[in-house]
């Protein structure tokens, strides 16, 4: 990972993961401008960390961790918002960021399903199924024990399945 502290290598990291980090920030804030700001800050701080000569083994997980902490920090500042509002998941505002109408329909379908889940389940499922992190990495990103994440992941998948089954039956 020592090559990461060159401009070209780091910008390649940005090109590979910018969308994923932005999505994570958007799902947690439902605010495009704030998500963009937090995403940029996550990459900037990661660079600063590397520029100090420190090593990072999994840079994607590292940027996600920084982003996650910045998101927590963002809500910590806004004390008028209760802790229950954290992970401000607004399906309409998230779907609004998708321009293509067909894509938007697909995104709305997933978001509707996720809306029925608890925030912790949404987090674990998207980090696992969308961003490709295993329980160990999710544990680091969310500051949880790996075993706890494994159990929650198992349960969250089951809950999503039941939500989707329920929706299928209703339709």
């Amino acid at each position, binding site marked *: 990972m020592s090559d990461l502290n060159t401009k070209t290598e780091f910008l390649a990291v940005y090109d590979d993961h910018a969308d994923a980090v932005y999505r994570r920030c958007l799902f947690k804030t439902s605010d495009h401008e704030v998500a963009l700001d937090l995403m940029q800050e996550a990459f900037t701080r990661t660079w600063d960390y590397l520029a100090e000569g420190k090593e990072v083994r999994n840079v994607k997980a590292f940027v996600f961790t920084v982003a996650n*902490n910045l998101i927590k920090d963002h809500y910590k500042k806004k004390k008028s918002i209760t802790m229950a509002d954290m992970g401000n998941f607004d399906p309409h505002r998230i779907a609004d960021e998708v321009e293509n109408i067909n894509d938007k329909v697909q995104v709305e379908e997933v*978001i509707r399903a996720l809306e029925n889940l608890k925030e912790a389940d949404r987090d674990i499922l998207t980090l696992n199924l969308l961003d490709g992190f295993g329980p160990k990495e999710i544990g680091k990103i969310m500051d949880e024990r790996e075993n706890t994440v494994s159990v929650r992941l198992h349960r969250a998948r089951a809950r999503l399945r039941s939500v989707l089954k329920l929706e299928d039956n209703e339709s």
Partner: protein
Amino acid sequence: MNHNQLQNFIGKLTHVQLSDTDREAVRNRLETHIMNNQPIVSTWISLFKKPAMVLAALVFIVGGVSAAAEQAVPGDPLYAVKVNVNETLMGLASLNSFSEAQNQSRITARRIAELESLAARGTLDPQVSQRLTLAISQHTQAARAHIKEVSEQGETGSALSLEIELISTLNTHSDILEKIARLSDMQASTTVTAAEELRRMAQSKAEDDVSTAVEQSGTILVRVNNERTLSPVQADKLLERTAGRLKEARTDFDNNYEIFSDTTVRDTLEELLVTSADDLDAAVDNIESGDYQAAKEHLRKALTLAHEVGIVVEVYKLYDLSSADTKDSSAPASTETATTTDEQSATSTNTETEATTTATSSDVSTNTEVSASSSVEVDATTSVATTSLQGASSVASTSGSSSTAVEDSAQSIRKTWSPDSNNYQKIERVLKRVDENLSFSTDESTGGYTSGEEEN
């Protein structure tokens, strides 16, 4: 539904993407940030590959000459060492736009200090003044160019803090120079001209530059009520710097409490610190409620006042504590005193002579210095008040709707001139509140992960 089906289902969320414009804009800012924040190790290695730099560093470390040169003013033999060696080395330590801007601002303040020193001695001739104001103008422009770079990297909070401090430096010293001019008949018009130049620099297109850069960074901004404002992350950075400056100014004031023989000056500075803390407190409220525009204006006021207090304490340290410079700088004041009390003046002059010839007369010398410089202090008292009030007015002129609030706080400073024993605790409370507010972002945003990394 098996794992793959679930993955495909959730995978539809990949349609949520950055627009090309946003992706490119953030990429450009990141690239600029990378260029300006190169890895420390490689930068230092490349610096020390250059023999000239090594030689210069050795001169700096071994010489001791450079330390002596720090007090030099134009016309002194060591002035060239100060400007060409010391300041070149100071510049080498600046590894990014932010520290470059800080360095240029620092050099600007050094040139201004030289102006003040010469003016206070009554030896500021028009040619030297012109040379120094030209240098100040050039370093101010260089600082602003770097501030613009910082802003273009999306670091609008840091850029704003640099600009506010630069404006405050120019305005505050402009007032101090005007007061010095009033104390001395010698070269007074030259000093006034220099003061006017500083004021003009402060009022030039500083705000426009930052605003333009902020506008260019476009998407990074949060728009509230159609007004451009700082993003949450950038508001934090401005908050952090403002609290840091207030803490420095408060500590500096506290450590030098006894040098203010005139209690009016002391009380005024204390009041300014409290006003700064009040604005800082209000800014934290604004940030918590998500009103970043209001937070920005409160932070602008808080930082302006804290920076002013810091500068005034620095000037007082110089005029009250240094030996030869103090006597020189207080000379015009002594002359002025002499016009009203001949007896006092005679005592002062005699004791000063003794002090220069007899080492054992240090106590007397100290007393004399205080009395000799007291008229500088008394007059500078007005300077402090005027400075802060004028500073507040200049803030008002740039902050539109908040002008009334600034004028009100300026008025309240005039009225509540008396000291308040709870002031120290009040400032402490606000600083602690800011610390708690910022602790997460500064300590844990990367640190949390680091410990996890080490476990592997």
